[in-house]
Structure formats: C-alpha cells, structure tokens
C-alpha cells in the first residue's frame, strides 16, 4: 500500500526522501510493478522530473538514464538486435511505455529476458549517493543490501560488442523457461548468462574467450530445477541455447 507519493525536482531532494527508513521509501520509475496491490506500506519517489530518461552514446558506451523507458531504449536504432528482441520479450507494448530500465533490473527475477541480456553486456551501474560504480552482476544478488536508501541513476552498456539472445518458452511471448544471452567483445572476452530460473539470471561464464562454456553452463544450471522445468532439462537446453548464441555471434556483422 502506497502511503506517500513524492515527485521531487532534484536528485538531492530524491535522495533525501529515499534516505528515510520510516516509512520505507522506494524510488518509482514507471511503477508498473511497484503500483500493483501489496500489503507492504511504502512511500514512493517518482523520478519523472529528474531528467533521468536520457540516452547518450559516448564512444563505445551507451549511457542510459535510469528512468529511460524500455520503449525509449527500444526506439534507439543503435542497440543490438538481440537487446531489442529481449526488450520485446520482457514486456508488452503497453508496459514498455512506462517500465524503466532501472526499475526492470531492480525488480527482475530469473525469468527476465532484459536483465539476462544486460547482465551478459556487463552493464555498469551508478548508485547515488556517492556515485558508486558497480556491475549489474554485483547488484542482482545484493539488491536487498545495496538498494535501500540509494538510487540507481545511470546504466552504461558497451556498444562495440556482439550480443545474442535465445530462449525456450511455452509460447513465443511467454516468460522463458530457459534463456541464454551471450556477449562477445572484440578482444574475445565472452560472457554467457542463463535465465529462466531463480531470483536472478546467472552469469555462467566471463572469460577471455568462450573456452569452457559447456562446463560453465552445466555448472550454472546443473541444479536449476523448479516447478516450471527440471534441472536436467534446463541444464541440457541451456547448453543448446548457449551454443546457438555463440554460433549466431560468429555471423553477426
């Protein structure tokens, strides 16, 4: 239940509000998750006046304001095709209009196509106050520790990489049962991320090359069984999807 609504005009005002612990005060991007009915009593800080819905290309990096909507990112013609595919898979057209990239990352679970891709891209985040820089992978499993009182303001992703995304689901617009996102840098650095299970996507591999990805995938999803799929299935299919992503990366220009 939302007890208070605030729409600050400056980052400082927002941070001051978020610093409160009573009531629990949370940043609100589009609110598509936060505004759903809940028993938790919270205050929300609407970020729409903070100018965080920006997108800037700086060299090989794309700087994304935290309040940029998924649609805003999708509308950028320079983002990798695989990221476009993942955004479309993440949310319907309506939800993409309000769901922000930071909000999506913060509330996502293992079934998030977008977060899987952003993790594969090794998205770098900036948390205020303090302008703390950290990787998305460092945040995902530390959200309850890292986020209270803080505001994710910026996300940076590399643009000089090749990204591939593939998934299996009950139907093409359904949440993934298993998905794989693979990014390869010009240096050969390769990150393989698996999704579809658990509280967050899993980084299976981050190596100078793709060597050993099979073992890495096996290790990552060898025990990934739940009500939606067996570990045996996820383990085998994550290898299939990862292989396909790697094959696809080889032909991306």
């Amino acid at each position, binding site marked *: *239940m*939302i*007890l*208070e*609504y605030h*729409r600050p005009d400056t980052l400082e005002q927002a941070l001051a509000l978020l610093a409160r612990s009573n009531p629990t005060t949370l940043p*609100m991007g*589009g*609110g*598509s*998750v936060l*505004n*759903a*009915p809940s028993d938790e009593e919270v*205050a*929300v800080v*609407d970020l*729409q006046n903070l100018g965080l819905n920006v997108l800037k290309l700086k060299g090989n990096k794309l700087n994304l304001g935290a309040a940029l909507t998924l*649609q805003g990112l999708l509308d950028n013609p320079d983002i990798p095709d695989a990221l476009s595919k993942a955004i*479309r898979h993440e949310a*319907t*057209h*309506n*939800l993409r*209009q*309000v769901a922000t990239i930071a909000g999506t990352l913060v509330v996502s679970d293992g079934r998030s196509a977008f977060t899987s891709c952003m993790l594969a891209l090794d998205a770098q985040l900036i948390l205020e106050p303090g302008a703390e820089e950290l990787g998305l992978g460092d945040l995902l499993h530390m959200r309850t520790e890292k986020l209270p009182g803080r505001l994710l303001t910026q996300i940076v992703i590399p643009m000089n990489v090749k990204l591939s995304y593939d998934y*299996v*689901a*009950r*139907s*093409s*617009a*359904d*949440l993934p*049962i298993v998905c794989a996102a693979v990014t390869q840098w010009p240096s050969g650095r390769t990150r393989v991320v698996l999704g579809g299970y658990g509280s967050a996507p899993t980084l299976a591999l981050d190596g100078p090359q793709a060597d050993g990805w099979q073992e890495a995938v096996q290790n990552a999803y060898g025990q990934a069984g739940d*009500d939606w*799929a*067996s570990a045996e*299935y996820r383990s*085998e*299919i994550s290898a*299939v*999807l990862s292989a396909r992503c790697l094959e696809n990366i080889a032909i991306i220009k």
Partner: protein
Amino acid sequence: MSINLNVNSKSHEIDVAPGESLLKALRAEGYYGVKQGCDTGECGACTVLVDNRPVNACVYLTRQAEGKEIETIEASGEHPEQGWKLTEGLHPLQQAFVAGGAIQCGFCTPGMILAAKDLLTRNPNPSEAEVREGISGVLCRCTGYVKPVQAILHAAAVLRGEAEPGEMITPDDIDALFISLPESPAQETSEETQTSVQVLPKVLIAPQTKNWKHVGQPEQKVDAVKLVQGKPAFAADFEIRGMLIAKVLKSPLAHARIKHIDVSEARELPGVAAVLTHKDIPRVVYSTAGQSHPIPGPLDSFSLDNKVRFVGDRVALVAAENSEIADQALKLIKVEYEELPSLVDSRLALDNEALLHDQPEYVDFAESDASRNLAARLHIDIGDVDQGFEAADHIFEHEYSVPKVQQAAIEPHVVITYWDEDDRLVIRTSTQVPFHVRRILAPVLQLPLKRIRVVKPRIGGGFGGKQEVLIEDVAAHLTIAAGRPVIFEFTRQEEFVAARPRHPMHIKMKTGVKEDGTITANEMYCLADTGAYGSHALTVTGNTGAKAMAIYVGDGEYRQNPNIRFVADIVYTNTTPSGAFRGYGVPQGFWAVERHMERIARELELDPIEFRMKNALREGELQPFSTAWSEGREPVPETIETNGLEECVRQGRAAIGWDQKFGIEGWHQVSGKPTLRKGIGISLAMHGTAIPYLDMGAASIKMNDDGSFNLMVGATDLGTGSDTVLAQMAAEVLGVPLEDLIVYSSDTDFTPFDKGAYASSTTYISGAAVVGAAQKVADRLTYRAALILNERGDGPEVNPSEIRLADRRATTQDGRFVTLEEIGQHALHQGEQEQIMAVDSYVSPVAPPPFAAQFAEVTVDIETGQVVVDKLVMAVDAGIIINPVTAGGQIEGGMTQALGYAVCEEMIYDDKGVLREQNLRDYHIFQANEMPQMETIFVETFEPSHPFGVKAVAEIPTDAVAPAVANAIMDACGADLNVIPATPERIWKSLKESAELK
C-alpha cells in the same frame, strides 16, 4: 490531496489518495470506458493514452498522471446522430471495429482501440506484424485477434485516404462469401503475415438459404456501437449512492475446520458496515451449478461453512466504505483452524482418509457417495463391449491426462446488490444464468423468489465460468446485513484460486480394431477431479463420454450396433472446485480419443483420415449415447439428421494442403534450420446443441408505433453475438432491417425465462423461441394489413395469408402495401386497437450435433522441444450460419482458447493445495503478437428440427485443437504426448524416450 487531472482536454479537480490508481480515479470520474480486468498491468483492459502513449491505468498512479494529457475512449468518437445534434460520429478505428466484427464481449475493445490509435499516430502504414505488436499489451479472450487486427489495418487505410470508413465488408465480399471453396491449398503467407486479411470466413452455403435477406448475412452486431464507445454497459459500470465494497477472507489451508473465529475487532473498525461468518447466516445447503431444476448433482455447498475445503475457500465476508478499509478489516479477523489431512491428487481420492464432505446436510444425487469422496459416478454400456473386444484383431490401451485450466474472461466476476424501493433485492451480475441465479439464491437468502430481481447487463466474456452462482450470494448477504448496496468483484487472483475452472482428468482408453481398421469396441475410463465442490461434476464428465465417445461407432455391422463403454468416477479433492468451461468436458474427451485414434492409425499403418472416416458416425445413424444417457435425465434415442463431417474433412484438407504435406518426403525439413521439423495433424470433433427435453428458452416481441420492435430475451449474450443472431432471425420473419429490432437481454422481471447461455443452445433453442414469437407477431401484422387495405377499398379484398412481409412493408400479391409504421399506428391508436405482442418458448426433443474437422500445422525444435503452431484450420458443420462474421469470430476465439489448452495453459497445485498460477503472467494466455494463422470454413447443412436449420457453433472450436496439435507434433518429430499442455520439456522428454527405445 487535491490534484488537477487533464482528461480528454477537460480539467478535473479531484482528491486522491497517494496510492490511488489512475484506473480507479478515472472510473470515479465517470470514465467507464476504462475497464478493470486485473490490477497488475497484465491484461490491458484499462489502457488509456497518457501523453499519447498507451498505459495500463491499473498500475499507473493518478498522481503520476498529474500534468499530463490523458485520453480515454470517451474522447474517440460518438454516435453520429443525437437527436437534433449531429456529431462527427465514430473514429475510423471505431467504425472499423464495428464494421469488421472485431468486437465480441467488448470488454477489451476500448483498450485495443486506444493502443491502435497510438500505433497509427506513430506509424500510419503499419504491417500486420506491427499491428500485432502494437496491441500486444491488450489481452482478448474472445476474438483470437483476427478481426481486431483486420479492423486496425482497414482503419489505417481509411486514415491514409485509401479506403472508405466502415466499408470492411463490401457487396463483393458478400458475394465471395458464397462461392465455391478452394480445391487447392491455401497460399503460403510471408513470415510477417499471421492472418489472411479477410473479414469473412468461407461458407459452403446450403440451398435453403438463398432467398433470405437477414439470416446468413454479415450484419453488424446490435451492441457494437455502444461497446466501441466504452459505454457503461457492464455490471460494474453502475452508480448508486452509498455502495459498500465487499471482500472475502479466504482460507490459507487446503482442508481445515474453523475451531474459532473472532470478528469483533473487524466489526469495530470505522467504515466497516458488516462482517459475516458461518455463525451469522442461515445454513442452507445448495449447489452453485447454474443448471435447471432439479440440479443434476449433489448439494454440497454453503455460503459460509465451519469448514474450508481448498486454499481460497470462504471464511468470512466483509462490507466496508472502501476497499482499503475492507482489506484492513480482513486482517483483523482472527481464525483458529484445526488443520485436516488434505487431498490434492485425484488418483488418491477414493476412500482417502481426507474426507471432504462429512456434513449431515449433504444431499446425494444418483451415485454420488460423499463417504468415499465421490461426487458422481457414471457407467454407460452400449452394445456388448466385451464381445467387441473379442472380435478385434488388435487391442490398444493407453492413458491420457488433461490439466485444470481457467476461463480467464477479461471481465472478472462482478455483482452489485441493493434493495429497491419495494424492498425487493436487485442483483445486477455478470452471469450467464440470471434465472438460475434467482431460483438458486432464493432459499439461500431466505427470500421468496418473487422478491428477487436479477439483471444481467453486458457480460465481458464468460466461457462457462459465469454459469455458476459464484459470488452473488456474497453481495446479497452483505446487503441484507448492512441494508445498503454492495459491490463484490473478484480480483484476478481470486479468479484463479476461487472461480470454477475446467475439470482435470486422467483418461484410460481401450479400443478393439480389426485388421482392416474397423473399430469393434471402444472403452473409456475417466477419473475426473471436481475439486472441493461437485457443481457440474456429473454433467461435465458425462459429456466427456457422451460426445467424444459417440463419434466413432465402427464400420459395417457395428454402425447399427456399436460397442461403447464409458465409466467415470468424479472425485473430490482439496483444490479449486471445477465447473463449466466452454466445451463442457468434451475437449478432455477428444484429447484422449483423438490421440488414441492417431496412435492406432499409425501403429496399423493406416491413413489417419481414412481410418477416422471409416469409423465415424454418419447421417441417419443413432447418436449412440442418446439411447443411454441425457445429463442425468431420461434418455430418448436420437437420429443424426445432418452430418457434414465428410465435406468438412474434404474442405479442411484442401485448405491446409494436407495432400501436399502429409507423408511427403522432404516437407518436414526446414531449409537452413536443421533442428526444426514441420508436422501436420488432424482431429475430428462433434458436440451437441442444447439438452433435449430440458433446455427452454423464451422470447417476446412487442411492436412500437413506428414499426420497430422490442425483442426481449432471457438469453444471455456473453459477447458471442447471440443478441444479434436472434434479432436477425426475428428480422427475417418480420421483414424489417436489423436496426428496427431493439434487443433487451436479460432481466428476470422483464424478459421471459431462458435457462441461460450454456450447452451451445442459444441460437438453436432461444432462436426457435424468437422465430415462434416473430411468427405470431407476423400473423397479427398480416391480419392488420389486410384490415387496413380492405378498409381502404382500393382493390380486391385481401386475405392475410396472401400478404408478405419484407422491406418494412406488408405487401399483397398485386403490389398494394401497408408500411409497418402504418400498422403500428393503426394498432395502437386507430382501429381494433391492440398491442401487437407475442411470446413463445421452445424446448427441443433433439440435440443435433455439429461436426468439425480440425487441422493443425506445427514446427518443432527437436533439440529443445519448443513447438510453434503455424496454422490452424477448422472446417465446421454448424448447420446454417446465421451471421458468418459472428460465427467466424466464435471459431477463431474458440480455437485460440484451445490453443492455450494445447501448448501453455495449466493450473498446478503443490502438495499443500497452493496454486502455482495466480496471475496472467504465470498462467499466460495468447497475445496478439504470437498467434498462428487461422482459417475458418463453414460447411452448411440444414438441420430440420430448427426453423432456420441451425446447429451449435460456440463450443466445438474448443474440442479438437489440442489433439490436432499433438498429432502434428507426432507427425513432425515422433514425440508421442499423453499429457497437455505440450510444453517444451514434455516434447523433449518424449523425444528422448523414443530415442532411448531405439
């Protein structure tokens, strides 16, 4: 806090709570075009444009919207003629939705139009794929998205100046409707095109229809114009002073006795008007099944009980000034439970220590036995089954399973109750069965039936889920307790945990077959799970056998003497009670029968179509089950008078290109995709049309001064278009255009009785009543026309029998005529004055079955098990098609629901009885941007038992998609499924098992 909200260019100063959704605020301001289908942003029924972008208002705060431009459907357009004021009329999108038959229940229509408006603003010339993506955020459970997509593409053309508004169906299209069907396969479409852009289905027309002017025509729906404007037509779109909000405290346990319940703190909470427990209301046992009297099932339910039988069962009821107070009150209720052993697996139900119904008030029906957890039992033997097995060369035995699935109508169950000025209780409810609601609730509320009035407004989809007296008693008890109006609306989560989904079943098949493919005996054992209560237990499961096991009688001597056995146990478990869902047990049966037939054909190396047709029921033969069972009533043998199955197979086979694909070397491979395999499958289906000697519908028709008519029916249009097709039949008899029929349905005070919308009966049963009433009115019209003409004396004396009604005139054979307006005025004001009005009712002695051939084409990834359904073709004999657009919409929507049943929808419970899927995100129904191509073909036959030759069309499209898809999967890759949905892992496992066997 007071804020300023800019809606449709008007400023609203409103007070809102910090967390109040834009949906709630807009509806409070009277923008009822914004609908509530969920409160989690999943369905899109609440779509509005915020700064020209589509937004789900249920998860958008009102405060977020401050300073922005909000547009609702109310700004899009309006009726062009409003008395002396002419308006610009409807927006081209609205016109296209009306003209193209894109509206069924209409609950999602405003959201879809606004999403489309946003799309066309940004992209005036979208591809079909872009349209589908643009409306992907708005779920529709009725249409299968075919006609909405077509409407949007047409509107785009209109807005570009390339087409005329509203002309989606041209005279050429109507001519084309009736041409011969294709003999060659349909053209393959590009990847971007998922439907063929064609409003009308193909109809192989029966000769009897050629002179009809309204029946058989693609008339626009009579309710389309109001729905496309988002008018306040639905149950919740109703304002009354002092309305309370009802909430239900639900059980967290699957099985428990309530040892103690303390509601004192809840009652003392300011703003709480009433709190009720089982101690506060009369203990009346009843059945919630919306069926005719006497209920063909056990009486096992109470409004509130001292025991809970599933997670989500009722514990207490609260009515408060607003939903926040009601929620708070629920938290203040203290309950002490004695947890009892629970039972989740139906295979363990019989004689289990967990006994669900130990209450002394339990009333058995037929072979129900609460002491064994048995809600119903069936044992039907036709012929000599054991001898049939002895005569067989091969015996095939397999077991199949189907899951529990949810109707997922986009409008949740909702009811408003209040005392009127005469101290009569008014129940305004989203029901399929208003008359059953009144009859069943009277004793529960301890009110005489005559003091209850049930009003059925517009329904936002039901699909059987609203054939249940599910929530009306909650609001009614609270109105009685508080003396105030009460609204009770299910949340989407409550729809999943506490409504009445489809019965899950485990089905064993045993079939004897001769070497030449003749079926000698066919046996089905069905274990059906009715969940915690037994409403519809007997009748749903009875239909599993009575329809699915009736289609294959065998060949030769077996045609006259088929050997069929159907045995079923319907058991209680501590899970969500099962109920009626479109198809009513028959999809479960056809899953087993048609998978079984496919296996037999393949194992005997017989052509799957030839094998089926060799054994299938034919015209002139007895419906075998008609000799043995009739939904718990006395059976009467019934001969099949019409059966277009053979032609359905021929047409469907041509449309999907069966002969170019099935068994053709190389067709299964996909170029450049070594892990993909294509497959094609068939399934046959038959259904029923109403329940003979039981289902009764009635209609009344009243003439007005201007020659128009009020058509009043108790039948309930859920979005199917039944109001329209009933009016078309009346228009045909009365010789007037459809616009001269004002249809009203339904209200127990004002409309004649109708048993309601179920059993695929409305067009047939209620339609026959309408025709009967129209004929009586027509007789008065011709009598009065003769009277007027003879008074005029300007020609030879006229006999009424020589007068024909057409084009709003009563015309003699020599060309003299009287307009119906003249007749109306004469009757009411001038001579031999009378109110021309008639009522008629109809009960059928037969239940003529529709037949269908369902084809599916799929692509399977043999590494992952992922299946994509590429195309569905259904060729249907539903008798005469009254309206090809609405009937086509029924097939498209039904196939889409059945597609979900085939590949993704299921409800899974853990061992504590907790449901996994409690929202649309986890459950997943198909979106517009993931649909296969769909094609509908109608093969008309003229059913002689109906004045216009109709049979049913509503339910048969749900019967055969799942087995056709599974048979196609088998054809693609050999995966042999016993269970649906065909999830990737199930296919993958089957492929692994078959690989290991090799």
